[in-house]
């Protein structure tokens, strides 16, 4: 019996797919699973596990059960993977560059940055202020109402992220109000206006300390963030700052070949080395 052309074509297609599945879907990956058992590669193929305390490639949070930093450890970056550094729920904040107005259930990216900066500043005894942040650590953002919509004199100004005392008393001669909870000032016609403030252009708390990574598992921090933490670690562990700095240097990877990527400090390895001191 001769099959119709369209049917024989689909049978050929199915056969081709099955052959390809065996070759590319089983033989190829399994060959490399076997290669991964070779001594020298097996450690890496298994996940670069160090002892029983983690993987040197996967970041972890050095915080206690309540989420507070454990002072004797270098701290990792903030993380959006699950409740923080959860490899079963990797991911990023996905908030955009103009995410500046808090909503009742979710703080804006700006407020998250301001909050973290203040907290890190307090922890490390440095100035935690940043541009566009209020002294109490939320986004310094006004909803400005103009007489003619987008133009004309200012008629009203509301500090949208603050329910307490506004971060500035007046804006363009108008007294700034604090926000009523749950009120959407943008919908009422307010123009969202972030206020730069007079914080230094180069804040004491580095960028990586106040942002989350793409994976939520970033194992590294910048050398600047490590340096910021050195005095605290030295104090908590009874070491000199130079001893701690030497360890940081030992666990800093420079740019590969001098131009690939950025210098980075592996936090888990550094903390393990501190424990071994």
């Amino acid at each position, binding site marked *: 019996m001769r099959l119709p052309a369209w049917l024989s074509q689909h049978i050929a297609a199915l056969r081709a797919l099955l052959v390809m599945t065996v070759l590319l879907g089983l033989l*190829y990956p399994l060959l490399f699973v076997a290669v991964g058992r070779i001594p020298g590669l097996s450690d890496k193929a298994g996940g670069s596990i160090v002892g029983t305390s*983690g993987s040197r490639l996967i970041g972890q949070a050095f915080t206690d059960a309540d989420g507070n930093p454990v002072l004797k450890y270098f701290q990792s970056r903030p993380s959006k993977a699950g409740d923080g550094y959860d490899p079963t729920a990797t991911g990023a904040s996905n908030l955009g560059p*103009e995410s500046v107005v808090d909503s009742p259930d979710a703080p804006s990216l700006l407020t998250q940055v301001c909050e973290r900066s203040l907290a890190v500043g307090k922890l490390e005894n440095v100035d935690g202020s940043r541009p566009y942040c209020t002294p109490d650590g939320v986004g310094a953002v006004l909803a400005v109402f103009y007489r003619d919509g987008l133009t004309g004199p200012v008629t009203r100004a509301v500090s949208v992220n603050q329910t307490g005392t506004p971060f500035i008393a007046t804006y363009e001669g108008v007294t700034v109000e604090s926000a009523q909870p749950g009120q959407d000032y943008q919908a009422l016609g307010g123009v969202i206006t972030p206020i730069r403030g007079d914080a230094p252009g180069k804040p004491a708390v580095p960028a990586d300390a106040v942002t989350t990574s793409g994976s939520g598992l970033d194992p590294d921090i910048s050398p600047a963030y490590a340096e910021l933490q050195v005095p605290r670690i030295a104090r908590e562990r009874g070491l000199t700052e130079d001893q701690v700095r030497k360890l940081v240097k030992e666990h800093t990877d420079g740019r590969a070949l001098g131009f690939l990527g950025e210098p980075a400090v592996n936090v888990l390895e550094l903390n393990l080395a501190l424990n071994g001191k």
Partner: protein
Amino acid sequence: MAGWLFVITLVLALVAVYRPFGDYMYRVVTGTRSNVVERGVYRLVGVNPSAEQTWGVYARSVLAFSAVSILFLYAFLRLQDKLWLSLGFDPVTSHVAWNTAVSFVSNTNWQAYSGESTMGHLAQMAGLAVQNFVSAAVGIAVAVALIRGFASRGSGELGNFWVDLTRITVRVLLPVAALATLIFMVGGMVQNLSGGTDVTTLTGAAQHITGGPVASQEAIKLLGTNGGGFYNANSAHPFENPTTWTNWIQIFLILLIPFSLPRVFGRMVGQNRQGYAIVAVMAVLAIASTALTIGFELHGAGTVPQAVGAAMEGKETRFGIPDSATFAAATTLTSTGAVNSFHDSYTALGGMMPMVNMMLGEVAPGGTGSGLYGLLILAVITVFVAGLMVGRTPEYLGKKIGAREMKLASSYFLITPALVLIGTAAAFANGHNSTALNVGPHGLSEVLYAFTSASNNNGSAFAGITVNTPWWDTALGLAMLLGRFLPIVLVLALAGSLARQKVTPESEGTLPTHQPLFVGLVVGVTVVLVALTFLPALALGPIAEGLS
């Protein structure tokens, strides 16, 4: 400075491999001798490797293979809990399974699921990763069929799809992927079948370190310009991209085949300079776009980047800003869609660039195969426009570009804009944009990005939008399906039409298609067509955000 060196070394490496790797691929697609594996495949599949196909048979073979692949993958995902290595995960829900099956078969690799909490190891390696190989091979096969149309002396034949599929997979994709897997494993990528390792962190918390055959899947994810990550975080995940140098290799792999295929084109039409002209168009657009993306990100405009002091949100410490931006450009200039940083948190204009890259139709250099055939269509349109200017019958490589050819080329060009703009409009009309995480212009960008990515078979995302709802899965699945296979059918129809033509000898009126003038014309036509089509939508999204 280090960032620019990163780009320059990539360019130099691609220049260095253009001839040898392109020549190698040329020999693969034109060779007639089969090796043992290939003969075995032909016998098992039951095809005669020396039988030539007309465009209709070639197209039906592509469609049959893809249809069977979608059904197979759908069934695989729905039944994964009954198979081995499921890690205890449930069957993938019906709408996510449909979306994912179409996504991987169409070389899009849009991910409406989160790998580490949805897919078992067998579904990843024997379901998804197989399509990473064969969907890339299908793209290259279609491009080669189009070139055969140009090179043909009037026979009307385009080669044999099953032979192309097999030879490209066995001789190009598999060996390069195997080499890359090995290199990635040295870099620290995991490759095991473990369900994971439970550890106790230094401060006493539990952490589950995931496992999986990651390295073997990563290699083809990039080489085949697929982009579907093993984990949700894709190439930002330290297990998918452990070091700064694996990051360089990943970008190189993304660009390797698309940038070398013009050499195959030049060789097959018998004039290497035609290949150089095409690759020059790709390079001009790619370098300009990459430089702009890096520039916008380093400049760090916008309230949050200004508050932070750098556009570091969603980026990894080890990669830093320039290398992340380079990856973002490469992944959207091709049809890859892998990410090593999250585009949603890019500066307004930095985040617009990936979208613009996709809107260019992913031709600079585009996906494996799809980039070349997309650019050849644009070259055909350019020849036609130039012909109108001087009032002569346009011809390209000795083939007349008549009414039928132009109808096919223009229809090809119109498909993706139609899908993107109608899809975006439908999402807003039906209120489905409410699943976007951000509001205002950025919310529009998220929706626009989703349809741009799906229709162009890219697969990257402004990931803030929640897309695993039945409406989104269905709509984006349709966008991916139509955005892949309608153009393929049109390209093959064009190839068939060209293949039936005898070669017209060059005359004084023929526009030389290997000179800088032509390169400039194609770049111009590409940019103008895209600007005319998408500028209104972009103005409401990223441009409005950047100006506010």
